[in-house]
């Protein structure tokens, strides 16, 4: 079970990388972890550093992927982002938090939803 969901997650991240590359994003980091947090993808959208949470759904018919990124999850992403900026000594760069979701329908079709600037640090 754990292995299956890991695979599903990896597949989603691969698909997200592909999608973002097409959009002109430059992915610099995958699965970045800090002590109290993690973020799926880190990429540059032009000069803006974007922290991306990837969501996978099958047969989901309603609701927004943002609804699945709850406060604790957001805190975890924010913590990871802060750690990343500190470790890489990045200053004076505008950042953003995005959510990318893949929604697989019953017929196997995939709908991609990309929410830019999904949340802020407060």
């Amino acid at each position, binding site marked *: 079970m754990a292995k299956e969901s890991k695979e599903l997650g990896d597949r989603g991240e691969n698909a997200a990388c592909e999608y973002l590359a097409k959009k002109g994003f430059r992915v610099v980091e995958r699965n970045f972890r800090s002590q109290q947090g993690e973020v799926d993808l880190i990429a540059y959208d032009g000069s803006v550093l974007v922290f991306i949470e990837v969501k996978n759904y099958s047969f989901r018919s309603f609701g927004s992927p943002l609804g699945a990124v709850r406060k604790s999850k957001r805190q975890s992403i924010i913590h990871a982002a802060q750690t990343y900026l500190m470790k890489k000594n990045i200053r004076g760069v505008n*950042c953003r*938090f995005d959510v990318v979701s893949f929604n697989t329908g019953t017929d196997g079709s995939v709908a991609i939803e990309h929410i830019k600037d999904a949340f802020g640090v407060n």
Partner: protein
Amino acid sequence: MPSVLIKLRSSALHGLDGLQVEVEVDSIRGLPGQSIVGLPDAAVRESRDRVKFAITNSGFEFPAGYFTINLAPGNIRKEGPLYDLPIAVGMLLSSGQIKAENLHQTIILGELSLNGEVRPINGVLPICLSARDAGIKRALVANDNADEAALVSDLEVIPVKDLLEAAEYLNGDRTILPHAVDLKSIFDAGQEFDLDFADVKGQQHAKRALMIAAAGSHNILMIGPPGSGKTMLAKRLPGIMPPLSMEEALAVTKLYSVTGLLSGKAALITRRPFRSPHHTTSDIGIIGGGRLPRPGEVSLAHHGILFLDEFPEFEREVLEVLRQPLEDGKVTVSRALATFTYPAEFMLVAAMNPCPCGNYMDPVKNCLCPPHKLQRYWSKLSRPLLDRIDIQIEVPRLKNEELIKQPSGELSLVIRERVIAARERQTARLKGSSAHSNARMTPKQTREFCRLDEEAEALLKTAILHLKLSGRSYDRILKVARTIADLEGSEIISSAHVAEATQYRSLDAKGGDYNV
């Protein structure tokens, strides 16, 4: 693009004044977020969320970076949603999405809805008046606030529908003509009244007393059984009161503006207010209060009528707090956060039954109240309070033949003419003092202006001996006599005037009957 520190002008309401507030917006690059500092209350902090949606829904890009919004000076509390518009404009200016210069003489006020619409705020009139006095030349306000703001002379009022329109205006891409109102036409409108004195059957005595009360702005108490027409009479009082002067109208409008009671109505209040709070209203509701004190009913009745029906049914505390405003024409409300003084020059009109069951001293029906109940009923009204009510009359039950007859009597318009003439005499006499009416004369003015002829003086002396009047009642009789003489166009107060005025102290004369 480099971010620049943006400074915009806005305002904070402080009682009935607007204080100048500077909205500073600056950002640094980094994780996205916003913080608002400068003692904001919950409504101001929430503006973060409204601003975000208003900006994106108006077709702008929500600027990246961490924003700090400072509302200066930092030592006064900022309340309400009026900073939404300046904050949004500040963020757009800071991120270079709009460009504007010379905004240091422009005040920006408005709440934003999520779709970017600019919504009206409370207190625009006092804010704009203070801003104009502080040297502000232009005000950017919501469409729905434009009429009210335009009441202020020498201030260019720019009404905006939404954030986009405001941005286009500031960018210079859109011209918006300054909003102007025709003060005179607003002022002349709203002088029609649906209720007329001629609708009330009988009660000639009460009608005359009310005319005198209106002419001198005297407080009046009507005592009478249920159904005798006390409430009907009181409701028709505004129709015989003299119209508000422009100065008075602005003072009243300011009070209604800060309490948020203006919306939906005309920008300027042109009729004398008529407030009739229910007898369960608390003392705070009557006098004003709250964490940051708001005006109460006595202030909302400023330059108008405070009608207290079922007078003794009010809590004792409520009745006693009326004493200060009745005497001084203003109330000072102190709370931990602020102390505000609100004007409260109202005319008190009180109505009551003679006893809890309503039939005491009725020639036809029998009173069923046990004596202790009657005593408790009347003990609610303290001597010092009753002393401050210049005219106390009885409004008896209508006789059967009066009930059947069609209502008759003078039209309100006719009575009003007489009241206005009497007021004009008073205004001329009291010119240059703070008093506007006979009821508000100082003791010194009373001595100076209430000259009695010999006969009148003798009559008053006898009355004092017989009725055991207090010093305050004596003054009140003089003032009412002055008004009666004014109604007749007489400068000298004659014995007839004093006799009538004395007759209106029915509780002094008959107090014993009522267990007072």
